[in-house]
């Protein structure tokens, strides 16, 4: 876990009304990293830059230590990509995808592809346009895993899928990660069940990284609690990260170590942390 699978240095990209960066992110090899943030925070732009699909205004991106600009063709064999849309002609049948991919990837493995197609119960005769969103996602993942990729990049791939499919996908990702040279980067506005197994969380907000930290450290540092308005007056103000006031009291995201131990607290989810921090920022601006 010493090397980085992805290194992003001072990446910037501006569009009308939106600017990303300067971003600095390292994705350590062998890890599952969740890249989270609201819709429009710049997650997809970052991933497109990593894959060389857009040209950054400035900065440098290295994958496996190699500059993406100079080594894009060879690097693409080593990266499995799952986006929320499938870039395969609608009329194509699943069994034809095999031939299509053989032309695309130098390292294509027919046997592996058939293994995943069978595992996911995909029917060879079915046309792409007839597939449900879940099926398309499974096909896309089958492709990503069948060309000896060492790095998997998933962009909003599991959002909108049912819990049973997400559960299957988590198992596949964890199988993939049994090899310590393999790495997974998942972007999502909602990580849900995938967050359990995540090693790091990188949190993007308005085009900037708010933090990138070990997931379990985050969950240990913060805590949720519900208190009445008077009790809150007595708290160390530094302990409060974000709050939601309601008619009968307040729900708080707090820093666990700065709280009196007598107060009952619970572990937050990554989603809780994300919402309270963003809301906390908005309140501070008001």
């Amino acid at each position, binding site marked *: *876990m010493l090397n980085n699978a992805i290194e992003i240095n001072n990446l910037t990209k501006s569009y009308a009304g939106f600017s990303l960066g300067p971003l600095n992110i390292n994705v350590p090899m*062998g*890890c*599952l990293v969740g890249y989270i943030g609201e819709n429009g925070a710049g997650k997809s732009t970052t991933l497109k830059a990593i894959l060389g699909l857009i040209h950054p205004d400035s900065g440098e991106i290295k994958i496996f230590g190699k500059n993406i600009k100079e080594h894009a063709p060879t690097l693409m064999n080593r990266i499995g990509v799952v986006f929320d849309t499938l870039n395969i002609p609608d009329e194509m049948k699943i069994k034809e995808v095999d031939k299509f991919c053989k032309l695309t990837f130098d390292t294509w493995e027919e046997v592996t592809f058939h293994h995943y197609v069978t595992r996911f119960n995909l029917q060879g005769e079915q046309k792409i346009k007839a597939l449900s969103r879940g099926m398309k996602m499974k096909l896309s993942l089958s492709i990503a895993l069948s060309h000896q990729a060492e790095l998997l990049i998933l962009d909003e791939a599991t959002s909108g899928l049912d819990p049973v499919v997400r559960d299957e996908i*988590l198992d596949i990702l*964890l*199988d993939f*990660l*049994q090899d*310590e040279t393999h790495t997974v980067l998942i972007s999502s506005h909602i990580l849900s069940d995938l967050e*359990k*197994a*995540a*090693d*790091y969380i990188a949190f993007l907000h308005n085009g900037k990284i708010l933090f990138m930290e*070990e*997931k*379990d450290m985050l969950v*240990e540092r913060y805590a949720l609690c519900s208190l009445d308005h008077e009790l809150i007056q007595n708290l160390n103000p530094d302990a409060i990260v974000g709050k939601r006031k309601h008619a009968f009291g307040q729900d708080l995201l707090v820093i666990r170590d700065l709280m009196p131990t007598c107060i009952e*607290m619970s*572990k937050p989810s990554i989603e809780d942390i994300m919402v309270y921090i963003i809301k906390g920022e908005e309140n501070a601006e008001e």
Partner: protein
Amino acid sequence: MNIQISNASNDPIYLQIKNQIKSAIISGKLKPEEQLPSIRYLAKELRISVITTKRAYDELEIEGFVNSVQGKGSFVSMQNKELIREEQLRKVEASLLDAIKQAELAGLSIDDLKELLETLGGFEGVE
């Protein structure tokens, strides 16, 4: 070996793993020189972070309960009888310190406590 992770627990996940492996070693369920599951396998089965699992193993190694062999895995340490005794002793000390604190609140002296301890020891019987 069984390991259960509770999300309701306030104990961090690495600590839950560490404590459960430790008690498996202390109780003899895990024997000296026995191999522990690999970090990645344990993380996958429990669906938890690899880094968190590694932290649990690292701490077990620092405390002398396991040995890691590069490229081979982690094994229960040989010389842990002394360690287990120390660990138990520390627990007894902690419980006694707690008892002393409680006794102070109740206005009991150390002599009162000694007496109480002897009485209780007499009832429970020393195994």
